[in-house]
């Protein structure tokens, strides 16, 4: 059974803290993604990685960074958490085109910044 695992389901952090969200996949996928999901806005792409140590900015990268040191692990870092980063964060992985590019998602991390 394919699996994308996010390290926490719920997190509460204080403003200004550095926050790490971890994601691990066991499918040997090249692509990994971080999204945030907010009501009415859908899933907005924060960062995308297509290989180890390779990354691209998504639509809303400001205030975030990422790390991919190993193929199976993709970390999202909030350098200095702010209240407007309170959201649901979703990680996903997939193979690149051509072929089956279906993405598999983790269960999400609901982050509250107080």
């Amino acid at each position: 059974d394919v699996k994308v695992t996010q390290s926490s389901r719920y997190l509460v952090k204080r403003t200004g803290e550095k926050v790490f969200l971890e994601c691990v996949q066991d499918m040997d996928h090249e692509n990994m993604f971080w999204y945030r999901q907010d009501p009415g806005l859908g899933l907005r792409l924060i960062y995308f990685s297509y290989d180890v140590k390779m990354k691209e900015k998504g639509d809303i990268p400001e205030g975030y960074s990422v790390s991919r040191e190993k193929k199976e692990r993709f970390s999202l870092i909030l350098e200095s958490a702010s209240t407007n980063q309170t959201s649901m964060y979703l990680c996903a992985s997939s193979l690149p085109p051509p072929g089956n590019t279906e993405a598999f998602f983790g269960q999400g991390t609901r982050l509250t910044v107080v």
Partner: protein
Amino acid sequence: AQSVTQPDIHITVSEGASLELRCNYSYGATPYLFWYVQSPGQGLQLLLKYFSGDTLVQGIKGFEAEFKRSQSSFNLRKPSVHWSDAAEYFCAVVGMEYGNKLVFGAGTILRVKS
């Protein structure tokens, strides 16, 4: 810029009625197209996908979608809606023009009247 548009934020249908959810994308070549569903408090589930071939694709739970290149659309349909179909539905696109990123629409919330 590339985009995925779901023009209907909310749709309400009666149980047993037919359903069509719209999705349009701005794109050059043939995209990889997906529909995902998210029930309240749940993760994302893939309903169906289109990579190539027959432009009418069948998915799970009785859903189907049709790719129309001339209209840049990938609308989701179901002939008879069940109360359990109430959820949020997301259209998503992958392709070279997006840098192989998986880009989502803002979602359509489906309500089912009994």
